């Protein structure tokens, strides 16, 4: 069944990315914790009911002329309102779905979907990782166990931050283990 809000996958077999090398496999696939979507979901849900209150609001504010507009024009703007909500939901979901953090046996990749018109991919080698630390602050984050993971590279040339990811302690431990195995394999 299609999982709408998958946030953490350990060694996913059915996920690949465009610059993946033949001998490279994904160890960890992350998105922001699903709960970070609650804000926009709630906003969209409330917005669905706004047209129901419009007649009352228009009388309070003195905008009764709205009812002089022909019904077909009012219907057009009502449909436009719901299309606007749909556009908002699509944009927010795509932003969450395509902002991913990938840890492989060779690299750490951060795919950032800035907007509908721009995206960027940051990739660092596992060898360049100097340290990985997690940051989990606040009751809400502690309750749902999600936080930030900051990955620093040698000479600070390119740091990567995993924001609001689930199980940040597990993620940092895994990155440290992989880094150790990778360096041990090359030694």
């Amino acid at each position, binding site marked *: 069944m299609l999982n709408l809000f998958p946030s953490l996958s350990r060694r996913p077999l059915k*996920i690949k990315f465009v610059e993946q090398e033949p001998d490279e496999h994904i160890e960890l696939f992350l998105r922001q914790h699903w709960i970070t979507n609650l804000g926009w979901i709630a906003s969209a849900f409330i917005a669905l009911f706004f047209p129901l209150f419009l007649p009352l609001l228009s009388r309070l504010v003195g905008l009764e002329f709205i009812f002089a507009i022909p019904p*077909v*024009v009012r219907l057009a703007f009502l449909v436009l309102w719901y299309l606007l909500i749909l556009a908002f939901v699509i944009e927010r979901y*795509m932003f969450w779905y395509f902002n991913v953090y990938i840890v492989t046996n060779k690299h750490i990749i951060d795919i950032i979907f800035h907007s509908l*018109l721009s995206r960027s*991919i940051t990739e660092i080698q596992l060898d360049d990782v100097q340290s990985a630390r997690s940051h989990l602050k606040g009751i809400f984050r502690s309750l749902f166990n999600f936080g930030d993971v900051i990955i620093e590279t040698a000479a600070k040339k390119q740091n990567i931050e995993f924001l609001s990811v689930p199980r940040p302690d597990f993620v940092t431990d895994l990155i440290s283990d992989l880094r150790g195995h990778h360096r041990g394999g090359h030694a």
Partner: protein
Amino acid sequence: MSIEGQILSAPLLFEGAVEAVLRALSILLFGMYFIFSLVVLRQVNLMTETLITEAGLWMRAGAIIHAGFALAVTVLFIGLLFG
């Protein structure tokens, strides 16, 4: 038309102009939504090529259906508003 007639018909003319503007504005907004759906389609195609997942095919299909829906709604309201 007498002066009284001209004065009485002025609000009606104004309302007619406002209605015409609202109709044109709504079609413009529908057109903009259709353009947005094409941008979504393009971006979904780009991102599903960058990140290959199980749901990628479903997302592409959804984006195509969404673009078709946006076009159909635009055409429908062109017909309803100016037909």
